[in-house]
């Protein structure tokens, strides 16, 4: 009889502060970065949060060489490590953590279908194009984005799920970093026992309350 393997799932959340940092870094203008005391405090708290995640990963006692990382928006392209490296330099704590894990011997796997990521990018570009016009036009665009996005997210999740199942080697444990918009757990539940690193919500989904 086959044992069901364990999977470590880290829901990725960016605090407002971290999003702001990434945004500034993407603009390439570090001078815009606010440097007041409260900013330093928040910087510290964001760091603490990710350090906490790192500590919890260590507490799982999975050895790094047997850890295979699957990351949200990481395309299957042969340049996964370079992508993580670039994003780590651009203030993404998530990718900094991945780089630390790689240094310790973990492996990083291409996770997503590149074409679906390009489609996501196009949708986001259309949405942001409306942000400058007016709040109402942005809200309308946001609704359209959500409609398209839900379908696209299903396709992305299906690909990721298959990718994890097909690339995971004997004796390895998948470490999955996914944004909270993904609903990957449903697709993985039969094949893996999922251990959540952060699980703060009282309910996973609103509809779970009614078992819909």
């Amino acid at each position: 009889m086959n044992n069901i393997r364990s999977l470590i799932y880290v829901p990725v959340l960016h605090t407002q502060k971290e999003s702001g940092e990434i945004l500034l870094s993407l603009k390439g203008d570090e001078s815009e970065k606010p440097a007041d005391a409260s900013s330093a405090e928040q910087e510290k708290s964001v760091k603490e949060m990710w350090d906490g995640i790192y500590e919890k990963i260590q507490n799982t006692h999975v050895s790094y060489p047997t850890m295979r990382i699957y990351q949200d928006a990481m395309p299957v392209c042969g340049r996964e490590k370079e992508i993580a490296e670039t994003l780590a330099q651009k203030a993404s704590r998530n990718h900094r953590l991945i780089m630390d894990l790689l240094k310790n011997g973990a492996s990083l796997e291409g996770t997503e279908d590149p074409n679906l990521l390009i489609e996501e990018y196009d949708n986001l570009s259309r949405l942001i194009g409306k942000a400058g016009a007016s709040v109402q036009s942005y809200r309308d665009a946001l609704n359209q984005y959500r409609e398209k996005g839900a379908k696209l997210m299903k396709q992305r999740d299906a690909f990721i799920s298959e990718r994890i199942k097909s690339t995971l080697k004997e004796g390895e444990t998948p470490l999955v970093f996914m944004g909270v918009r993904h609903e990957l757990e449903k697709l993985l539940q039969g094949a893996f026992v999922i251990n959540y690193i952060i699980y703060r919500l009282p309910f996973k989904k609103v509809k779970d309350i009614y078992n819909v």
Partner: protein
Amino acid sequence: MSDRSQKPSLLSKDFSTLFSPIRINADIANTNKPFALYEFTSIFFPNMVPSIVTLLLDMERHSQRLIASIAPEKRERLVNDLEGVTIEIHYLIKDKGKELMSLPINICPAEVLRNAAFARKGSRYNEKMQEEINRILTSFITKEIQRRIKIMIEGVLKTLLAKPRMPAMLKKLLSLGLVDKEGRLAKGATIEDLISGKYAGLFKKVVPEELINEALILKETIKACYGWEGNDYLSSANAALVEKGILEIIIGEMKEKP
């Protein structure tokens, strides 16, 4: 006759145009009861919402079979005769006689027959209703989480007040009337005010950072999981911008030769 427009709602949005406006009495909802109610319904009526939706869907499907055997002229006459007629099923939850939550379902037979005649696939009853119920539940859960965070913060304040040397910022909070001598937050102070709003600067000097972080993460989680954006247009636009920026880098790197 329904008086839905006069009922208070947890949500500022107008749901009166939707199929089955659920109303929640926000004044009563701000207690332990909604949460206990969820637990109760999930144990004893786990299929309440799906059952309602199934009932409506079955009715449509069944009506399709019935309507097929009726001559088009008679069918048209039926639709005309039923125009304006509504059937209302009213789910009502009360707390000591006061309405806590109500779910009035309005069925328009003429519309059901018209849909059946056109053999329309799908039904507005399903998605719209589900979406609406989810929104209400989201607001309930959000409120419950906010209440719990408020309790946690008040617990911390109470402990600090009991200390012989009260932190200076806590004295300031007291003098401003934001906190009372029991450690309770001022009436009307919202969790938004405390963690990221107008009192955030004061509170973060008194309340442990971890608690503020926890609250911020919960807020972000709710927003991301349930698509709740409140009035925070800017942070939603910024989040989209960050996501786009990250993808831009990824796609750029992807196109480089390995």
